[in-house]
């Protein structure tokens, strides 16, 4: 009898616990709260790609994927709780999906030997893998975005921005302030004037900022906004008749959610992106067949092909490719968090690889190394077509100005290394 009870108890524990052989990918999502409209499509894209791999390929390298979703509500404390409650499940990589959570997880994940991938957000200087051994921010970061926005403006002005004025409308937070130093350095190099216009959280009232833009008539406006700030800014730009084609948002100000409330007048608004847009890729046919049609789509299944869904899908694809790289390098399918870091550090994304995945031309080619955790900083510009209700790329993926950015990254990461007694370098 005792034996039976013990067996039953053991079975129950094993059933309740994680399937240890699975590859565990936590998803720190926010499907509730003020930013849910942006959190849902990303979380859906992230989940659907892993579901596709499980259903179509049987997982990665023969190992099923166990995706654990944890709701953060875009709240830093909850994000840290999610990390603490899931790290023991064999989690391979965290995508915190919030700059605040990323900053909190950098020391924790480093101490725990788990990778953090902050794709297009987080601490920019984490690109220096010699200092931030566990943090990756490929394929592009905030500073790459600022630089490529200026490159785009240079292209529009025959390579000369001298005498032009660029206004930065930014969320008055650590995130929003990220591009300031870069834009200041680029202003010295290219001779444009930079006007800074902070907007306090949440950004529902921006009349002062846009009246100033109306008075000072900057040639271009770059926006680093988030949530309701984006919709209000685009509406206010429409109100003062600011030309939409001269208004460029960072990728977190470039979803359908941001432009649709302003209707047809948002036509021509531009946004930076480090991945392609739309759903005209073979992988979406597979998602329809293996995920949607089988009733396994995440959420309501109504976000497929939107900008943020594609970003979530892209993040999952990069995680899966890093896991494959780790499996190939270690020769085992059941990789550990330490193996995952090796996989991420040796990740190479080529066009050939993306085409094979059903994502031809979906993102830039890049290679990660121990020294370079941020990829090559390739960013494109997308433009909103209000009549069609869709984004379209209007440039190729172009590289940011590494001559300006690399010294800034070296400076910031060195300061972090000094503060935290880290001996920088790659073995």
């Amino acid at each position, binding site marked *: 009898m005792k034996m039976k009870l013990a067996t039953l108890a053991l079975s129950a524990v094993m059933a309740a616990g994680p399937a240890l052989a699975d590859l565990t990918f936590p998803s720190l999502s926010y*499907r*509730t*709260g*003020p*930013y*849910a*409209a942006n959190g*849902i499509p990303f979380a859906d894209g992230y989940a659907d790609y892993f579901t596709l791999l499980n259903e179509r390929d049987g997982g990665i390298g023969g190992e099923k994927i166990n995706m654990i979703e944890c709701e953060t509500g875009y709240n830093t404390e909850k994000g840290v709780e999610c990390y603490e409650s899931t790290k023991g499940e064999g989690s391979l990589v965290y995508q915190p999906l919030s700059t605040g959570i990323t900053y909190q997880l950098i020391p924790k994940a480093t101490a725990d030997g788990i990778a953090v991938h902050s794709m297009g957000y987080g601490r920019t200087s984490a690109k220096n893998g010699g200092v931030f051994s566990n943090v990756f921010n490929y394929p592009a970061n905030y500073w790459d975005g600022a630089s490529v926005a200026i490159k785009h403006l240079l292209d529009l002005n025959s390579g000369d921005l001298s005498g032009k004025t660029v206004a930065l409308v930014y969320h*008055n937070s650590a995130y929003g302030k990220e591009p300031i130093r870069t834009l200041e350095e680029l202003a010295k190099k290219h001779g444009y004037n930079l006007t*800074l*216009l*902070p*907007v*306090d*959280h*949440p950004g*529902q*009232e921006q*009349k*002062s*900022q846009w*009246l100033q833009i*109306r*008075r000072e008539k900057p040639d271009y406006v770059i926006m680093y906004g988030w*949530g*309701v700030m984006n*919709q*209000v800014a685009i*509406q206010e730009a*429409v*109100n*003062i*008749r600011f030309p939409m084609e001269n208004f460029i948002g960072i990728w977190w100000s470039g979803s359908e*959610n941001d432009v*649709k*409330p302003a*209707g047809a*007048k948002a036509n021509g608004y531009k946004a930076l992106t480090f991945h392609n847009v739309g759903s005209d890729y073979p992988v979406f046919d597979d998602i329809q067949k293996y995920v949607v049609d089988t*009733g396994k789509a995440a959420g*309501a299944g*109504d976000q497929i092909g939107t900008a943020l869904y594609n970003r979530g899908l892209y993040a999952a694809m990069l995680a899966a490719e890093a896991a494959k790289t780790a499996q190939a390098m270690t020769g085992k399918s059941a990789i550990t968090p330490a193996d995952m870091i090796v996989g991420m550090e040796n990740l190479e994304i080529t066009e050939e690889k993306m085409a094979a995945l059903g994502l031809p031309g979906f993102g830039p080619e890049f290679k990660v190394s121990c020294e370079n955790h941020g990829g090559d900083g390739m960013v494109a510009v997308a433009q909103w077509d209000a009549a069609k209700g869709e984004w379209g790329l209007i440039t190729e993926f172009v590289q940011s100005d590494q001559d300006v950015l690399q010294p800034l990254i070296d400076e910031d990461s060195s300061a972090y290394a000094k503060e935290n007694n880290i001996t920088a370098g790659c073995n």
Partner: protein
Amino acid sequence: MPEQFYWGLEAALNGLMTGVLYALVALGFVLIYKASGIFNYAQGVMALFAALTLVGIMQGQVPFAHLINAIFGTDVHHFGWHLPALAGIILTLGVMILFAWIVQKLIFKHLVGQEPIILFMATIGLAYFLEGFGDIMWGSDIKALDVGLPQGINSWLDETTFNAFNYGFFIDNLDVVATVIAAILVAALVVFSQYSKQGRAMRAVADDHQAALSVGINLNFIWVLVWSLAGFVALVAGVMWGTKSGVQFSLSLIALKALPVLMLGGFTSIPGAIVGGLIIGVGEKLFEFLIGPMVGGATENWFAYVLALIFLVFRPQGLFGEKIIERV
């Protein structure tokens, strides 16, 4: 005159208009506080819920569609109709009255005579419940709201001022509409509370619950009425703010903009909400215009509270609030 003067004048003018939008939110707080002594923390969420309901009804969205589909394996999302704005507003008003009745029946009826802090805590609970309920009922995507209100620069003012001063003033047409609506709303509320039987009963309840009960006033009915009126004001505020930014869950945060208005105008005065809104609106815009550039900008959020605190020091009951005198 120097350009700087016109810019300052334009900032002040826009501050007045913005102040009206703040006042629209503050009005809902005043109505409930005046009649029941409850500081309704849920007022911002009520504006959100009303706006969500309006868009949902107008667009023929099936409420709880995600839940229904998950339980029954169906795939229903829309009824297939698109209602005109007026019909949507009337039906939404019906929903807000039903909401008021349920709130009274299930929550506040049982809390009569409790300490104000208990009632306040109840509204905090209500706010979080309503936010989640709205999410489940209508989804959390950002919805464009178009009830036919004009938006964008007022060309007439732009051209007239340009011809007169060689500088065209900016005013958003939506703000002009909001001002007109707010003026009508305040006039209607004042007339209602002063001259209608229910309005007088409402004021009697506000003065003394027990005395009002003793002369036969139905306390439950009056509170349902007050919550319904607050729901209507929330709908108006939700429409105005939702038209600006799309209907989304951040809309509930507009309550934060009403707090300094209430501190300044007083919690019990309808005209106080309007005057408080105007002072806060003008004050924060002028401060941002004059001092903002010297301190790096983004002063509006905190300066509104500084302004309210200054008034509070000299008039703790607010500009129009009732002075409380308790004698031993």
